[in-house]
């Protein structure tokens, strides 16, 4: 079995298996924990806060803007960039269509390539920031760096495969798929889980503060 066949077959299958096991394990392991009933008299119904919280924390409040805007913009650059690259590059849509039977129009290769470049630059900038800024340098751990690595690797291998630089195409494609497998395997065990938990966290805080008549 050559590398590409391994990557397309057993590697991805194993990765999806681990991804599903780990994700449900960690999500339910948290969501099924106890939550004490709040007996305090609500100032207003709490539920709307669950939705407001999602929106409110999309963008920094004005008093914080000058201090965190750069990080937010870089964060958005690479998050949106990843969404574009992952979900609007034709071969990826074919991958998804093959698995789930749904598809949508792709963006032109050139656009995806350019977005990939921007995404990569944003990720590199954030890594530099993580290493240079005393706060992020102090609070960063293995998870932060390894998660960065598994996020950036599929992007780099994917772009190399498209450009056919560094190795033969099938090798690059195999490495790309293997790096995706690595990302999927790491996903449930590191901070990538924030992709799910951010909703829960914002909803939780949003409801607590909505109940108190304010916002978070």
């Amino acid at each position, binding site marked *: *079995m*050559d590398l*590409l*066949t391994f990557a*397309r*077959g057993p590697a*991805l*299958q194993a990765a*999806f*298996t*681990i*991804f*599903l*096991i*780990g*994700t*449900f*394990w*960690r*999500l*339910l*392991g*948290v*969501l*099924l*924990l*106890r939550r004490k009933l709040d007996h305090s008299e609500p100032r207003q119904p709490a539920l709307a806060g669950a939705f407001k919280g999602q929106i409110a924390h999309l963008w920094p409040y004005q008093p914080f803007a000058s201090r965190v805007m750069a990080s937010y913009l870089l964060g958005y650059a690479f998050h949106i960039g990843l969404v574009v690259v992952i979900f609007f590059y*034709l*071969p*990826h849509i*074919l*991958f998804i269509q*093959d*698995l789930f039977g749904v598809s949508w129009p*792709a963006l*032109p*290769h050139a656009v995806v390539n350019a977005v990939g470049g921007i995404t990569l630059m944003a990720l590199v900038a954030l890594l530099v920031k993580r290493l240079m800024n005393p706060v992020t340098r102090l609070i960063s751990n293995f998870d932060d760096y390894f998660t960065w690595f598994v996020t950036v690797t599929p992007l780099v291998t994917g772009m190399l495969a498209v450009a*056919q630089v560094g190795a*033969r*195409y*099938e090798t690059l*494609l195999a490495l790309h*798929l293997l790096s995706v497998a690595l990302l999927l395997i790491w996903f449930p065990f590191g901070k990538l889980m924030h992709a799910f938990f951010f909703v829960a966290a914002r909803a939780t805080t949003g409801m607590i503060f909505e109940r108190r008549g304010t916002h978070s």
Partner: protein
Amino acid sequence: MTEETLGECLSRHGISRRSFLKFCTVTASLMALPPGAAAQMAEALARQRRPSVIWLSFQECTGCTESLTRSYAPSLESLIFDFISLDYHHTLSAAAGHQVEAALDKAIADNHGNYLVIVDGSIPLGAKGAYSTVAGVSNVESLKRVAEGAAAVIAVGTCAAYGGLPMAQPNPTGAVGVSELVKDKPVVNVPGCPPIPEVMTGVLAHFLTFGSLPELDVHGRPLAFFGDSIHNRCYRRPFYDQGKFAKRFDDAGARAGWCLYELGCKGPTTYNACATVKWNQGLTFPIQSGHGCIGCSEPNFWDKGSFYKPLSTAESIAGGGMIAATTVGVALGAGAAWISRKRQDDIVGGK
């Protein structure tokens, strides 16, 4: 080797020097040889005495021989057999039985150390080689015996090169390619199902001209023909770059000749000269005829999943397995939460 030179042989067949030069020019350019190589090739070939060639056919379908012999018109490519003294060939031999085997013995004895061996078909190792025998001798034994005195071995077709169809899962005969068995002689793979005739000719011409085998890639193929992917040389490539894809074999995109990537074309991972040399006197090749490349010149191409699934898809992500994984995950999550709750209860309870 026979005494007659190739030049003499050609003129005996009424081939003009002009058309011979033309052949050499085309061959040299196909192989991306430097300018001047064509003349050198013509001169060398003309002076060359025809080498003795022993052709062994193992587990094969004769497609490779067909490909080489049934060219569209009697051309110089088809005259490959005039370059050489084909002393033994199962399919093409006029003689039969003991006579043929005697010819083989003679060829081995007369040209020991100098003859070329061409192999088509894979070699079965299962059941002590009993799956395929010629004159009571298993293929593996024949190959070992014949290769021992060979100058070089050329594995023609994907079966001889990499095991091909017979080796596809579950490989009932234990088939392998030549290079699995012949380790001490130069082996050139000319894969393809079937291989392109011009490639075959080119390899022979190179050997005869320079006395050596051409430069090979990681899979033992001549780089001159297998150096770039079908995709990179495909005339439909601009459509790929523009994002124009046929979605079905009968849709407007297919009729407009758009890229067949979505229909499973393996062009990007397949290395061969189909897109440049083409087939049938350079008339067409599979993609031009409307079907995606199936990657036939790549090792294990039968076992690389569906010919009709795009390259970027995953293979064998089984729904059942994913449901099982989800179930396991849910169980682990619920278990983890239960353990956590219990630990908390124990602490609150003072345990």
